[in-house]
């Protein structure tokens, strides 16, 4: 797969977007090398960049954003799990029952401005959700949810 490195201006836009939307400090985003692979924007430890350039790699770093249409980069659930720990805005804390509902595809009545949110449970960022028309919907990828079984007792984690 072809890949292209993001230039500092593009990284700056990404960092500003994450700061404005989720309150993630810009230096978090700027601390990675960023590479575009197909629709994905991947975060790579900067020390690994020469190695990614040296070989025809089948995967590099973490697929943190997805570019879809003209809407700009969209944070993935995996990206949210890693970058979400620095988020201070648009973070929704959900309990076990709520999380179970979201995983099962149900929407929950939820107040708040519409748009994407980072879902967090027991202090851990678990992925992306979206607020729409007074409802919260989960956007956890099938790779996260398909084998998931909640226990009969204890916390969701």
């Amino acid at each position, binding site marked *: 797969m072809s890949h292209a490195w993001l230039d500092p201006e593009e990284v700056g836009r990404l960092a500003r977007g994450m700061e404005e939307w989720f309150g993630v400090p810009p230096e978090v985003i700027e601390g990675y090398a960023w590479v575009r692979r197909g629709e994905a924007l991947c975060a790579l430890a900067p*020390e690994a960049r020469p190695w990614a350039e040296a070989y025809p790699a089948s995967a590099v770093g973490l697929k943190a954003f997805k570019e879809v249409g003209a809407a700009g980069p969209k944070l993935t659930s995996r990206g949210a799990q890693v970058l979400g720990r620095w988020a201070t805005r648009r973070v929704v804390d959900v309990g076990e029952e709520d999380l179970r509902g979201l995983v099962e595809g149900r929407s929950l009545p939820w107040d708040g401005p519409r748009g994407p949110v980072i879902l967090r449970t027991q202090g*851990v960022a678990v992925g992306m959700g979206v607020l729409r028309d007074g409802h919260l919907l989960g956007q956890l990828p099938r790779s996260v949810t398909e084998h998931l079984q909640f226990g009969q007792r204890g916390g969701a984690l």
Partner: protein
Amino acid sequence: MVTGEAPDRGGRYGRVFARYEGLIPDFPGFLAAVARPSPVHLRVNTLRAEVGGVAAALAAQGVVTRPEPWCPFLLRVEGEPPRALGATLLHALGLIYLQSASSAVAALALGARPGEAVLDLCAAPGSKTTLLAQAMGDRGAVVANEPNPRRLQSLTANLDRLGLTAAVVTGYPGQNFPLGRKFDRVLVDAPCSGEGTWRGPRARPQPPSAGLRRHLARQQGALLRRGYELLAPGGTLVYSTCTYAPEENEGVVGPLVAETGARLEPLGVELPAEPGLTRWEGEEFPPELALARRLYPHCFDSEGFFVARLARP
């Protein structure tokens, strides 16, 4: 030390492992140990979670764990887990990785540090790769190589699940990995006959033919040689397998040591293990091979493993 039970030399495992009766100390104890399933271990992804928090979350679900004294973020599950740990949110979110203790030893023995360039030549499914990245604080480069496309999928899925950013995945046949760039550390966890994984009543041992063993040894030798060629001077290489077969272990490392001057080193992980062999069925190996370690289930309750740590002068 695991306490022994009545050995069964004539039983299934007695027949499978008969060739090692003179090689493995306390052979009856060994047979008793392999008849039991291997304990479940899980590694806490300390890049994203704290050991205490994970242990508490598991305890709330009835899963009792205790950290291994030689690796505090590796938790041994006490008894039978009440639910499949691979189906928990902890697992799906990449906060834990199910990994045998022996496999963790092989990766830890490499001693990878933040900022280094590390090659895992036979990386799938990624248990050791992800531990290397964890040990490096996800800073540096971990080149994870896997030629088999199906196994490559499981490797990338696990790297993704654990949220690692230092990994670069390649798909070369390991023995043909391009020369040119040198690595600080190289892990060669070679494909093998897998005898060390044969434990418990549900295992289905398939002893290899003499021809397959020769083929494996040739392949392992080629992988080890290429891994050593890719190692920077002063660098460290770990060669490991999950088999007891000397032909696939000392018989592979010995010739490289004799031909290149590679220096064997202690593993740096204190464990109840036996030294590597210096002779087997009339064949002599370099005496330094005693610094390698053979992990036997009756001494170290996990999968059987062989681990050798080599330095390039």
